[in-house]
């Protein structure tokens, strides 16, 4: 299967990371966004549906989980499940509407619906409007284990993410995943083969939304608040960038993308100062204020220069070295056949 070994290594490294001086809260945030991006990739990379409204699932789940923990005093595991559930439910409704349009319209519909949800979140009281939902406690796992200690929470989050990733991987390899691939290729044909395309799409959408919701809920649990920026369309944009940067339709690309983008958001300023110091180019000093520009440049670069994304490109270089046998033999056979 898909290099299990590499996965185990990665998992081991993550498990050890806090002891190697990595900063747990930051790592947890990374995992949340990695999961978020991967959930989008399930849709974008494997079904070819560009959802420009994934922030809605992420953000709303973040709020609901938050209020579950803070106002209802529910235990974290429940809050996470609720988050995923809310994501799924919202995904079902948005999906029902969105799958009625194909291609690029799909992206616009999801974007618009998400914007609607954003305005909703701005106005309803329980989100705390632009002040955000603050001071969410981490609670006790199964009512017993307190998660206030960063390390404890870290391993919980790690476990949850691992399971979620395994799940998504399985979906991709399942018979269902196969048909999604075909669907991506030629919808009309899939219909004529007797498949109920809309239900297939909807299911994929719901699964993806549920994972996005889980990611959102987990983020609230980690950081202790949920705010409008989680629901805003720029968040959808960011997660698309993560997926694209890492590699559409690659298994682990989105996670890689997430690490880079989140790292960038938090570290760009210091990175800029550093660049400024080493290169003595004053401009870099101001890099911190240009995150949006830098993000834009990354989008452009990804689309124009390496569309396969980081992981995708690496994979291709590998193939290049081991020039794909089928390709060649394919040609030869053709000649024999003719």
């Amino acid at each position, binding site marked *: 299967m898909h290099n299990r070994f590499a996965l185990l290594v990665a998992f081991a490294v993550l498990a050890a990371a806090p002891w190697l001086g990595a900063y747990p809260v930051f790592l947890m945030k990374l995992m949340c966004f990695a999961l978020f991006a991967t959930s989008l990739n399930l849709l974008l990379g494997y079904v070819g549906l560009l959802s420009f409204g994934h922030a809605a699932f992420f953000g709303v789940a973040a709020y609901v989980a938050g209020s579950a923990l803070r106002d209802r005093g529910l235990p974290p595991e429940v809050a996470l499940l609720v988050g995923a559930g809310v994501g799924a439910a919202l995904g079902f409704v948005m999906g029902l509407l969105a799958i009625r349009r194909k291609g690029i319209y799909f992206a616009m519909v999801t974007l618009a619906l998400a914007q609607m949800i954003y305005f909703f979140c701005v106005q309803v009281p329980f989100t705390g409007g632009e002040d955000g939902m603050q001071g969410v406690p981490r609670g006790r796992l199964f009512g017993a284990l307190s998660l206030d200690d960063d390390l404890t929470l870290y391993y919980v989050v790690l476990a949850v993410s691992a399971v979620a990733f395994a799940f998504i991987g399985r979906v991709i390899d399942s018979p269902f995943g196969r048909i999604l691939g075909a669907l991506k290729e030629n919808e009309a044909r899939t219909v004529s083969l007797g498949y109920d395309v809309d239900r297939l799409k909807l299911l994929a959408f719901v699964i993806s939304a549920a994972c996005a919701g889980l990611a959102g809920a987990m983020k609230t649990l980690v950081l202790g608040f949920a705010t409008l920026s989680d629901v805003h369309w720029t968040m959808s944009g960011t997660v698309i960038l993560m997926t694209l940067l890492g590699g559409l339709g690659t298994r682990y690309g989105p996670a890689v993308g997430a690490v880079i983008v989140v790292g960038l958001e938090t570290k760009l300023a210091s990175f800029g100062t550093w660049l400024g110091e080493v290169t003595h180019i004053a401009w870099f000093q101001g890099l911190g*204020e240009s*995150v949006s520009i830098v993000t834009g440049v990354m989008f452009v670069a990804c689309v124009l220069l390496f569309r396969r994304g980081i992981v995708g490109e690496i994979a291709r270089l590998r193939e290049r070295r081991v020039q794909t046998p089928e390709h060649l033999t394919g040609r030869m056979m053709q000649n024999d056949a003719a």
Partner: protein
Amino acid sequence: AEISDGVVKIGVLTDMSSIFSDIGGKGSLVAAQMAVDDFGGKVLGAPIKVMSADHQNKTDVAATVAREWFDNQQVDMVQDMLPSSVALAVSNVAKEKHRIAIASGAGTTKLSNEACSPYTIQYSYDTYALTTSLVKAMARAGDNSWYFLTVDYALGASLKNDSAAALNAAGGEVLGELKHPMHAADLSSNLLQAQASHAKVIGLANAGAGTVNAIKTAREFGINAPGKQKIAGLQMFISDVHSLGLKSAQGMMLTTPFYWDRDDASRAWSQRFYAKTGRMPTFIQAGVHSSTLHYLNAVQASGTDSSDAVLAQMRKTPVNDFFATNGVIRADGLMVHDMYIAEVKSPEQSKKPWDYYTIKQTISAQDAYAPLSARHCPLVAGKVVAGK
């Protein structure tokens, strides 16, 4: 001296790339740096380092940076923290890590009420002071019937509610309210209705682009032509007036905790700021400077940079400088100081660049801010003092 890890680190956490970058942003960083330089760059023999981060108006980025600063960089004090969402989130982190958070940028009254923290100081202003001072002053002057244009989120609500309460207290009446969504590009419709209400004052319970657009449109429709209705900005920064231009903004009333041209001290500092940035300071940027100095003095005086001692010292010492007069940090963490009612000059009255306000009257700290008794800050109830 008692300086942990031999350096005092001040982190300016602000929005440099999004909608708040004009009122805080780079300006706040400059202001903080100026304070450090004015102080001599060293305290108790230890160097003072100013760090900064742009949270792009994303709370999660802000909180992660703050945590990272406290845990890995030993930052002693976080500064600015606008907007409210960031202030509230970072305030929680600071409380957890026992470090000082000076919210010079945030105006939400929550910060010194439900959400108050022994480690957080709300320094420049709060929305209550901005609105009530203005409403009371205008009502006394006879402008006692108001119609509100309220932006449909928390800020709008609190601006509107505070002023409505103040208005009723002053015997005035609210003729109506109209909510509008954030990013409403065009408020003309709302203004037309406000006009139709024949209220004496149209109160703008919104901020930034919303306020600016409303004022423009009002001018366009001649709603606030002399002798007609007045427009009151419940939260206006000098940067807003600057971008509007006096032609549109003239004649409107507002409250400000600081005006660069108020006295020699403020003028002197502001001109130095202007020389560095090409803009006159907003009251947030001025607040950053003032509070940073106040902090450093407290460190100096208490001979340590341990949060609790420094905070105690800061509370003990009243603030009287180019920024604040009669300033006191209360138990709820709010720094109360005098406020000023200003009217925006007409192009003719304006003699020099950034010559925008005429200060109409001064509201004393006591009248401007809500009394401690009216606060729901746990710290006040039990009169808990930081750290004890």
